C-alpha cells in the first residue's frame, strides 16, 4: 500500500470508520508506513486531542466525591465501581482524601461508642443484682455501697494550636511537647518546628562529571536529564531526556553498580520511560541511552563521560515515609523526606500542609528545616 497513496476520499472514509474491513486494513497499513498521508489525514487531530484532554482533566479535577459516596465507602456499602472511583479520585485530590480519612476516623469513634454502649446496659444489671443480693442474702452485704465521689471537673490543658494536618490538629503543650503527632516522629517534628538543621545527606557518590559535561552530551542530539545525582523514591523512576533535533529511536539501559544490565526499554521515539519492573531498593544505578540509527548505534553519554547515577530509596526509609504520611500527616512525612534527601517530595508535602493552614507561622518555621550541607535532588 506504501507505493499507492489512498485518495482523499478513502482517507476521509477511514477517519469516519467507514469502508469495510478490507479497505480499513489497507488504508491502515499504508498510514503506518507513510508519514505524509498520516499528516494529511490527521494533521488537524492533534489540537483536537489537546482540547479534549484539557476538558477531561478539568472534569476529573472538578468531580469531587459527594458526602453520600464517601459515606457509602466508609460504611462498606459502596459497589466496586464506586470504590474504584473513590480510589482514583483520592489519588489526585487531597481535599477528598482528607475528608474521606476524617469520615473513617469518626466512623471508628461511632463504632467504639456503640461497643462501649453495651457496658451501659451491663453495669446497671450488675448493680441491680447486687441490690437484690443485699436484701435477700443473710449476713453482711456482699456489695459495699459505692463511695460518694464528687463530680470530676475537667479543665482543658493549656496548649497552642500549631496547625491542622490531614490526620487532625497538632498542638504544643506548656512543656513544648507536640500533641496530635505519633510518638515515633514527635521529636523529629519538634526539631523541625524549631528550625533546626536536618542531618546532612551525602550524595557525592551519585554526582559525577555528568552535569559538568552535559553540554558535550548535547552534541549527540540527546541530553540526559533525570534521574541524575539523586535519590529516587519510586522504585520505577521516570527516566527523561531532551532531544535536540534528534528524533531517532533510542533504547534505555539501566545498570547496577557492577555495570550489570538490570532493565532495558524497547526502542522509544518518546523522551520518557518508566521501567516495567521495580528496581531493587537501596541500590545505586547508572543509565545510558543507545541511539538506534540503521545498523549504527551511538551511546549517550559517550566515554569519557560517565553515565548518570542515582540511588533508589531503601525499603526501610521508604516504608517509614509511607507510614508517616498515612499516620502522621504531611508534617511528619516532610521531616522524614528532608532527612532522606528527597527535597522535591518534601516540598510537595509542605505545600499540602500550607494549603490546609494558609496563615500558620508553624508551617513557615517548618519550611526553614533543611539539610545541613547543600545537596540537590531535582527529580524523584
Amino acid at each position: 500500500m506504501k507505493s499507492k497513496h489512498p485518495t482523499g476520499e478513502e482517507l476521509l472514509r477511514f477517519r469516519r470508520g467507514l469502508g469495510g474491513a478490507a479497505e480499513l486494513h489497507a488504508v491502515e497499513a499504508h498510514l503506518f508506513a507513510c508519514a505524509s498521508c498520516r499528516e494529511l489525514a490527521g494533521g488537524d487531530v492533534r489540537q483536537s486531542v489537546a482540547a479534549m484532554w484539557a476538558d477531561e482533566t478539568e472534569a476529573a479535577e472538578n468531580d469531587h466525591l459527594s458526602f453520600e459516596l464517601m459515606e457509602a465507602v466508609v460504611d462498606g456499602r459502596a459497589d466496586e465501581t464506586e470504590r474504584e472511583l473513590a480510589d482514583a479520585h483520592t489519588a489526585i485530590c487531597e481535599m477528598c482524601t482528607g475528608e474521606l480519612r476524617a469520615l473513617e476516623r469518626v466512623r471508628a469513634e461511632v463504632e467504639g461508642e456503640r461497643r462501649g454502649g453495651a457496658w451501659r446496659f451491663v453495669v446497671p444489671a450488675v448493680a441491680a443484682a447486687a441490690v437484690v443480693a443485699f436484701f435477700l442474702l443473710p449476713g453482711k452485704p456482699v456489695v459495699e455501697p459505692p463511695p460518694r465521689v464528687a463530680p470530676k471537673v475537667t479543665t482543658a490543658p493549656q496548649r497552642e494550636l500549631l496547625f491542622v494536618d490531614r490526620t487532625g490538629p497538632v498542638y504544643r503543650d506548656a512543656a513544648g511537647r507536640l500533641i496530635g503527632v505519633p510518638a515515633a516522629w514527635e521529636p523529629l517534628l519538634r526539631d523541625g518546628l524549631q528550625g533546626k538543621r536536618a542531618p546532612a545527606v551525602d550524595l557525592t557518590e551519585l554526582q559525577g562529571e555528568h552535569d559538568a559535561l552535559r553540554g558535550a552530551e548535547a552534541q549527540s542530539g540527546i541530553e540526559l536529564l533525570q534521574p541524575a545525582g539523586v535519590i529516587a523514591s519510586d522504585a520505577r523512576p521516570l527516566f527523561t531526556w531532551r532531544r535536540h533535533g534528534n528524533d531517532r529511536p533510542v533504547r534505555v539501559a539501566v545498570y547496577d553498580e557492577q555495570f550489570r544490565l538490570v532493565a532495558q526499554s524497547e526502542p522509544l521515539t518518546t523522551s520518557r520511560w518508566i521501567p516495567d519492573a521495580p528496581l531493587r531498593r537501596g541500590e545505586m544505578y547508572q543509565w545510558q541511552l543507545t541511539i538506534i540509527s540503521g545498523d549504527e548505534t551511538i551511546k549517550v553519554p559517550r566515554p569519557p563521560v560517565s553515565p548518570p547515577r542515582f540511588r533508589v530509596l531503601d525499603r526501610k526509609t521508604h516504608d517509614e515515609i509511607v507510614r508517616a504520611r498515612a499516620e502522621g500527616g504531611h508534617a511528619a512525612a516532610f521531616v522524614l523526606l528532608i532527612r532522606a534527601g528527597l527535597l522535591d517530595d518534601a516540598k510537595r508535602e509542605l505545600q499540602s500542609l500550607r494549603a490546609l493552614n494558609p496563615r500558620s507561622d508553624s508551617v513557615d518555621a517548618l519550611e526553614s528545616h533543611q539539610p545541613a550541607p547543600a545537596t540537590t535532588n531535582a527529580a524523584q
Partner: protein
Amino acid sequence: MSGRNERIDCGLEALYCARDERELEPVIESLLTTCAEPVIRQVLRVCLRRTARLDSDAAEDLRNEVMLRLVGRMRRLHRGQGADTIDNFASYVAVVTYHTFDDAMRRAFPIRARLRNQIRYVLSHDRRFAIRTVEQGGVVGGLAGWRDRDPGVLPSVVDLPVAPHGTSVATILQRIFVAFPHPLALDALTDAAEQMMGLRPGPRPLHEADPQTVATHERPVAERLDDARLLEELWREIGELPLRQRVALLLNLRDPAGESVARFLPLLGIASIAEVGRAIGFSEEEIVRLWPDLPLDDHSIARLLGATRQQVINLRKSARARLTRRVGRNQR
C-alpha cells in the same frame, strides 16, 4: 410547565441540535445569559446568606466559576458525553451552582468541611442523635428524642469551653445540645464544634488555584505536553488502566467536534484498529464491526459491559482521574 421553562427547554433542544462549533457557540451564550445567570444569582444569594464567611467579592468569583463549569458541561452534553440527563435546565443550573458553592467552601475551609462531614455522619449513624432536612434543603441535627422540636438558632456570640484533645465528635455534639437544647442547622453545629475544638485556621482565597489537586501543581498538561505526543502518552497510560475502565473510556472518548478519539489512534499511526480492539478485549472482527459506530453512548457501553449506566459513568470518571494523575506525573 410554565412559559419560562418551555423557553429554557427549547434552548436545550438547540444545544443538542447544534451541528458544529459555529452553531454551538451562540446557543451556549444565549442559554447562559437568558436562563442560567438569573438562577445562579438567586442560588448564590441563598447560599451566601447561610454563611458569614464569604464576602460579596466571593459571589462574583463563584458566579464566574459556575459559568465556566456550565460551559464545559454544555459542551460535553452536546458531544453526548455528559453524565447528567437534563429535564429542566433551571434546576440543572441550580444544582451546578450549589455544587460549585460547596466545592468552593470545601477548598476555602478544608478543616471545616471535614468536621462538617464528621458531624453529619455522627448525626445519622449514632442512635443518640437524629438528622432531618428542612425547608430549602437545609439539614438540622439534634438529639434522637427531639424529632418534633423546632430548630433553634445559635446566638451570634457563643461561649463554649474548649474540649480536651481527642474528645469525640459525639461528645462534642452532646455538650452543644446541653448548652443549646434545640435542633441546630448543620452549619451552626459545625461553627460551635470548631470553637470547642479550637479550630479556627483562616480561609484560603476562593479564587486561588486549588493546590490540593495533584495534577494542577504546574501548568495544564495539554500546554506542557507537545500536542504530537499527547495521544501517544495517553494511549500508553490507557493500557495501564483496568480493563473495564479502558472500555468505558476508549469507546466513549471524543474530541470537541464529537469525533471518536479511538479512531485517531490508527490515523496517527499510534495503534492499529486490532491493537485498540485487543486493549479492550475485543477480537479483530468485533472491533471492526463496532468501528464505524464509535463513539458509543453510555447505554451501549453499559450493555457491552453488563453494567448500569451509572457504573459506566463511574468507570470513566475513575479512568479520567487515573490518567490525569499519571499523564500529569510524567510531565512534571
